[in-house]
C-alpha cells in the first residue's frame, strides 16, 4: 500500500543506433568512477555531428566494467582496457560488437602494438608488462612498480613509463625502463624521478616524459631523452598529460593546455587553452587537439575540439570522467 508513495523508476529499453560508418570519428573513453562506477565509450564524429553515448552497453547489453582506462585500435579491432575489472574487452571497431575478452591480468592500463599480432600491456599492480600474442598472454616481463604508457622506437625498443602510487611500498617507480621486443627482456633504464606516467616519441625519435620531481631536484619537469642525453625543462606544476603529433608537444599543467615545438629550448610561458573546469584528458591527431573537462568527476564531462593553436572548434558531452581517445582513421 505504502509503495504507492514511492517513486518508481521506469526502465528504458536500450536504443541501438543503426550501423553507420564510424570512420572519420573517434571513440572517447570515459573512465567512470573507480570501484562503484561504470566505464563507458562515447562515439563522436565531428564531421557529421553524430554522438553515441555508452556505445558498449547499448550494443552488447551489459556494462563495460569498472574504470575504462584506454582504447587502442589494432587492425579492425578495438581493444578496450578495463583497469579495475582486470580485463581487455575486444570489439569490432565498426559495429562495436563484443568479440572476446582477455583476462587474467591484475590491473591493466595501456596497450602498445608491437607487430605480428603481438602487443605489450602495462599494469598497475602486476609488477610487470604482459606480452600478449594472438590475443593470449604468453609472458610477463618482470618490472617492479606501476607500468603505464609505452612507446616503441625505431630500434625495436619499448620505453615504459614507470611510477609508484602515493601509498606504494614496492621498490622502483622512478625510472623509464627499456625493453627489447626481440627478447622481451628489460635491457636498460633511465633514472628520471617520481611520478612518471606519460611518455611520447616525436618525429625525431626523441623520447619525452614528465615527472613530479626530477631526479634529486625537488621540482616537477618535462624531460627530453635524446641520444642518451637527458634534458629537463623545470615546470611550476606537475605535468599530468603529455602528447605529441610528431612536430609539437602538448601538455596539461595546472588546468591549462600548453604547446611547444619539439625543437624548442624553453617552455612556453602562456597556455593555448584553459578552463574553469577540470582539464583531465588529452588527445592529438593530425588536425585536432582534444581536451576533456571531467568537471567534478561525478557528472558527465565535456570534450573540447581545438585547432593546433588552441582555438575551440566545437565540443561534445561525453560520459563520466572522459580521459582517452581512440581515433578511427
Amino acid at each position, binding site marked *: *500500500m*505504502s*509503495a504507492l*508513495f*514511492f*517513486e*518508481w*523508476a521506469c*526502465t528504458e529499453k536500450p536504443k541501438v543506433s543503426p550501423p553507420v560508418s564510424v570512420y572519420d570519428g573517434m571513440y572517447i573513453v570515459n573512465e567512470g568512477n573507480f*570501484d*562503484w*562506477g*561504470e566505464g563507458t565509450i562515447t562515439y563522436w564524429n565531428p564531421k557529421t555531428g553524430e554522438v553515441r553515448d555508452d556505445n558498449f552497453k547499448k550494443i*552488447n*547489453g*551489459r*556494462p563495460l*566494467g*569498472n574504470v575504462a582506462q584506454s582504447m587502442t585500435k589494432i587492425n579492425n579491432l578495438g581493444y578496450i582496457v578495463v583497469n*579495475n*575489472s*582486470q*580485463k581487455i574487452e575486444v570489439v569490432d571497431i565498426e559495429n562495436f560488437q*563484443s568479440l572476446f575478452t582477455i*583476462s587474467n591480468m*591484475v*590491473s591493466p592500463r595501456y596497450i602498445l602494438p608491437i607487430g605480428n599480432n603481438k602487443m605489450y600491456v602495462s599494469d*598497475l*599492480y602486476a609488477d610487470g608488462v604482459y606480452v600478449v600474442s594472438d590475443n593470449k598472454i604468453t609472458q610477463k616481463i618482470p618490472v617492479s612498480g606501476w607500468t603505464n604508457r609505452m612507446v616503441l622506437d625505431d630500434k625495436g625498443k619499448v620505453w615504459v613509463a614507470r611510477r609508484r*602510487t*602515493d*601509498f*606504494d*611500498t*614496492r621498490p622502483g617507480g622512478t625510472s623509464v625502463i627499456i625493453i627489447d621486443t626481440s627478447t622481451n627482456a628489460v635491457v636498460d633504464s633511465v633514472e628520471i624521478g617520481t611520478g612518471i606516467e606519460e611518455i611520447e616519441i616525436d618525429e625525431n625519435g626523441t623520447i619525452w616524459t614528465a615527472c613530479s620531481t626530477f631526479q634529486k631536484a625537488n621540482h616537477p619537469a618535462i624531460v627530453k631523452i635524446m641520444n642518451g642525453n637527458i634534458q629537463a625543462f623545470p615546470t611550476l*606544476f*606537475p605535468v*599530468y*598529460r603529455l602528447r605529441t603529433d610528431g612536430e609539437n608537444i602538448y601538455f*596539461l599543467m*595546472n*588546468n591549462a593546455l600548453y604547446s611547444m615545438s619539439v625543437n624548442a629550448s624553453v617552455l612556453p610561458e602562456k597556455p593555448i587553452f584553459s*578552463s*574553469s*573546469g*577540470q582539464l*583531465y584528458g588529452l588527445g592529438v591527431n593530425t588536425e585536432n587537439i582534444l581536451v576533456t*573537462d*571531467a*568537471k*567534478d*568527476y*561525478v*557528472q*558527465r564531462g*565535456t570534450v573540447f575540439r581545438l585547432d593546433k593553436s588552441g582555438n575551440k572548434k566545437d565540443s561534445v558531452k561525453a560520459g*563520466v570522467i572522459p580521459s582517452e581517445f581512440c581515433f578511427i582513421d
Partner: protein
Amino acid sequence: MPKIQRFTFAIMNIILVWKNKTNGQDTLVLPTQNIIASRTFCVKVERLNIPFTTGSLADVTETPFIFRRYSPGGLASVSLRGTAPTHTQLYWNGMVLHSPLLGQSDFNLFFDGGEILYGGASLEYGIGGFGGGVLWNDEMPTDKQYRISVSGGSFGSYATNNHFSIKHKKIGVKIDFNYRYADNDFSYINTSLFGRPKVSQRSAKAWFAGIKPVVFYRFHERHELCFGAWNQWAFRQIPPPQTVRFNEESQEDRSQRYLMRWNYKGKKTKVEAAAGYFNDYLYYENRLSKLFAPNISEVWQSTINVTYHLNTWKLKTGINAIHAEGKASVYENRRSQTRLGQHFSLSKSINRWNLNGLIRYDYQNQSMISYRLGGEKEINFKKIILHIYANAGKNFRPPTLNDLYWIPGGNPNLRAESGYFAETGTEITYKNLTFNLTGYLINIDNWIQWFPQTATIWSPQNLKTVSSYGTESTISHTRTFKEINLKYSMHIRWNRAVSRTSSFYGDMSVGKQMIYLPEFSGWSTLYIEGKYWSFGTELTGNSRRFVAADHSDYLPAYALLNAIFGVKYRSLNTKIRCQNITNVGYFSMPNRPMPGFHLFFELVYEINR
C-alpha cells in the same frame, strides 16, 4: 603532552552527563517508538530500535537514516535529512564517538539501539549535527535483567547478543556482549556479465565483537560514580563490485573507549561531570595493490554540566574539552586538534508554552557561536491531544584531521561548515491513532567537498552551499482485541537536498537532488501479537537515487518486504525473520549487490526481576 597528563587534564575538567531515557520495553516483536520525547523541550527525539537482538544499527527497519551499504556487514555510512555522513554525530554518555580522522562512523559496528536526536536536538551535546545525532546513555539498573540471544541463518551467519544487569544495594553492574559472524556468500544476478548469470558473492566474510561493561556506585544518596568501557573489534573482507572479477581487500577495526562520570543530584541543583579516553584503530589492506594502511586516533574528552531549577526557570550551563590526535598512514606526522566549548541554556514555561534557548561557544582554530531557539505546546481538546513544536538556529562543523592533513591534498586552510536550520512539527493523538508531521530546512554554507586539484590529487575545499528540506510523516494505530494487540504504522519521508552554488563553468548539478539520496523513502509495518505468538510484516523502500550529479545515471527504486514470526513461552522467545521475501535484486551502491530472500532464526531467553 604525555598520556598521564592528558588523562589528568580530562579528569580535572570533569563532566556532565545527561540522564536518561527509558529504553524500549521488550515485547515479542512490537517495536516501541517515542515520536516526540518531552525530555528536551522543542526538539524531535526518537528511540531507535534494532529489530532483532542480533542485528546492528545498519539493520534497522524503522529508521530515518538513508544507508549507503557496500555489502551486508560491510561499511554502512548514513545520511540523515539529506546531509552528509559527517553531519550525523554519535555520542556515548555525551562523549563524541566517531573517529577524528574521518568525522563519521560505520553503523554496522553498533549493536545497541540508541536515541535519534533530530537536527537541532544534537546541539545539546555538541556541534556538527546538521542532520542530527545518535545518543547512547547508561544509567543505574533498577532490577535484575538477563537476556541471552543467539541467532543463525542464511549465508553462514550466526550471532549472539547478551545483556546482564544487576543492582545490589549501592552497586549496579551492566554488561553487554555481542558477537556476529557471516560468510555473506549469497547468490545474485550479475548484471554486468554476458547472459546475466547467477553468481555467488565472494570475499565478503565479516565478524564483529563488542563488550560494554558499566559499573555504578551510589556512594551517597545524592552522589553516584560510574565507570564504563565500550570495546569493539571487527574484521571484514571488502567484496569487489560485480564488475570486478576478484580482489583481496579487507578492513580491521578496533575501538577501546573508557569513561568515568560523577553525578550529583540536589534539590534544585544537578551536577553531571565525565571524562573519557577513546582509542580507534582502523587497518585497511589491499594485497593486490600491496597497500597496507594503519590509521590510529586517540581522543581525550571531558565535560561538566550544572543544572539549576528556580521556580519555573531551568538554567543549564557547562563546559567541554576535546583533544584528538591521529595518524593516518599518509600523514607526515601525528596530528592533533583541540576543541573547547561552553554552553548555556534557559528553559521556562509560560502559559503552557515550554520555551527554550541554547547558545554554545566553541573554539577550534576559529570561533563558532551556535544557538537554538524553540518552543512547544500541548493542547488538550476533548478527545484529541495536539502537540506542536518548533526550533531554529545555527550550527557549525569543523574539518576533520583527514580534511586538514591528508597527503596529498589535505587543506589546512579549511574553514568550518556553517549553516542555519529550522524545523516545526505537530503530533495529533486521537484515541489509539497518532499522526506526526515534521517539516525541516537546513542550509549549509562552506560545505566541505573533496575536489580534484589535478588529475591525480584531490583536495577538500569549502565549495558549496547546500540546502536540504523535506517532511517526515508518521501515522500509527494500535488496537487490542481481547488478548490480541495490533499495531500499524507508516512513515513517509520526502527530502530535497540540492547544491545551490557551483565553483566551475558548466556544472549541471546545481539545483538537482544530490547523489545517493532518494527523494522519497519510508516504511510501513503491521504487527499482530497474541499471548504466545506474534506476526509482523515490514515494507521498506526508496525512490530512485541518482549516481551522477547531472542526473544522467541512477539506481532504480526498490521496495523490500520482510516478515517476522514469533512464539513465546515464559522467558523463551523464538523468532523467524524472513528478509526480502519477494527476492528483489537491488543495489544500495552501484554494482554492489545486496542479498535476495534470506532467513534468520533467533532464540532469546530473557528474565526481568
